[in-house]
């Protein structure tokens, strides 16, 4: 296996895994609840390398020991504590969580939509529902993962605000802003944050092989783009081996994001 820093064989999906893993750098002892294959791989990679204290769930009702392969069967998992949904809310509302949700739409100020496309009273497309997004977004750091970055997913204004963005949190007052934070948005094209004076979305890095122009063309609003914006970092040889050999030998990551 080739695994040098300039490895031309690093896939887009692997860049996305690295971008997700970096979200949890120095996250501490918090519950990471990744939605999607690539965020789940990122969380496991982070736990095995630079963030060993993060807490992973088994996808059911327990916390699991270690960071097993993504395709591990439930019977293969070792569990360390119970985490039924009733307890999940204790974790969410105490802030001991740093999660990544998916977004069917996300907008310039970080509002996320997983509820419905079109008018909520009679949607054009019914989605899963707001789920825990309203509460998550105002109680603990909540990042988002969008595996299909287009003008239909990165929109000027989402149809139903599920996860709360910066402007909406500010308008709602101190109850909403106190613990509100969107550390990152990761898409199949790049990494984004809200580190601008107006708290609007900024391009943080573009994945290797993606141009800034491609990202601008796929985004339905004006992104903030720093002059010195660079590429998403490449995996280290150790990280690449963990992804390819240990965590995801079946390449499930390529089903979520193609190169």
């Amino acid at each position, binding site marked *: 296996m080739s695994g040098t820093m300039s490895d031309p064989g690093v896939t887009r999906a692997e860049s996305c895994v690295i971008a997700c893993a970096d979200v949890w750098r120095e996250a501490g002892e918090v519950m990471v609840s990744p939605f999607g294959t690539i965020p789940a791989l990122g969380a496991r990679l982070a736990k095995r390398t630079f963030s060993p204290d993060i807490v992973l769930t088994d996808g059911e*009702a327990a916390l699991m020991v270690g960071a097993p392969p993504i395709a591990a069967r439930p019977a293969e998992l070792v569990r360390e504590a119970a985490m039924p949904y009733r307890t999940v809310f204790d974790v969410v509302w105490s802030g001991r969580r740093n999660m990544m949700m998916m977004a069917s739409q996300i907008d310039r100020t970080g509002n996320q939509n997983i509820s419905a496309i079109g008018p909520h009273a009679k949607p054009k497309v019914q989605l*899963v529902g707001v*789920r*825990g997004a309203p509460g998550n*977004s105002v109680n603990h750091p909540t990042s988002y993962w969008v595996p299909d970055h287009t003008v239909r997913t990165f929109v000027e204004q989402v149809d139903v605000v599920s996860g709360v963005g910066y402007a909406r949190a500010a308008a709602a007052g101190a109850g*909403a802003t106190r613990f509100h934070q969107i550390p990152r948005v990761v898409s199949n094209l790049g990494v984004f944050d809200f580190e601008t004076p107006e708290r609007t979305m900024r391009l943080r890095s573009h994945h290797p092989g993606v141009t800034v122009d491609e990202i601008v063309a796929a985004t339905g609003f004006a992104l903030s783009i720093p002059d010195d914006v660079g590429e998403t970092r490449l995996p280290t040889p150790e990280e690449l081996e963990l992804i390819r050999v240990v965590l995801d030998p079946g390449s499930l990551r390529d089903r979520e994001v193609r190169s």
Partner: protein
Amino acid sequence: MADKRTSIDDIVGELRSGMTIGIGGWGSRRKPMAVVRAICRSDLTDLTVVAYGGPDVGLLCATGKVRKVVCGFVTLDSIALDPHWRAARQHGRVEVMEVDEGMFFLGLQAASWRVPFLPTRAGLGSDVLTINPDLALVRSPYGPGHPYLADPADADVELVAMPALHLDAAIVHTNRADAAGNGQVLSPDAFFDPLFLGAAERRFMTTEAIVDNGALADEAHPLSSVPIHRMLVDGVAEAPGGAHFTANPPDYGRDEKFQKEYAASATDPAEWEAFAKRYVFVDDAEYKANVAERPQ
């Protein structure tokens, strides 16, 4: 001690059109599907269904039983979206009170504790407050300098006042129970079943098997596996397989193949009619026979 054993038909016989009914479980997990099917073939109508939604919501919508749904989501877990729910919403056939899933929990908790609301940050800034314009905020009475103000950042803070979700009836399904109404959950999560029961006027449980009072706990299953006590239950009906096709481990997992058929039946009216004739508008024995004789 009262013997609370009853039947699925008698449970449904206690329900009335227009009632608000809570259904336990979560998504496509441990749903009281035998009762849900019995409601589907009853003449009940105009129901408000309160649930962590799964195929219970989809099936009740598809059979026209529902006026309104109170939920944070509807999902089949292994299939992200329930197409029957999707169709009902996209055709505007049902009203919805969509709230954050934690707000939902607090609504049940408030009803169970007999307080009118519970405060939370969840919902602030989101469209949960605009799509449900009757939801109100509450201001903390602990202002600057108040001796009970723990953190100055919370002085006078405004929070969502999640109203109590009062239920006319609640139905849950468990792995084991006794005739007195104690209920055991052998899978890893009791979800919010005790709160659904606590929030309701009339409380019903179906179960895989009824055992002797005092026999639920043993060496393999400590008392912590019995989260439902008999003060929360008016009637208990033995219903082996009563959660099919949702997941009810360790008795059985989700019937993924059947769930796919259920989802596919939403694609056109003829498909749905065939599915409903075979699996909905039949009694429990015929349902089981029809499920069993499908090609495997």
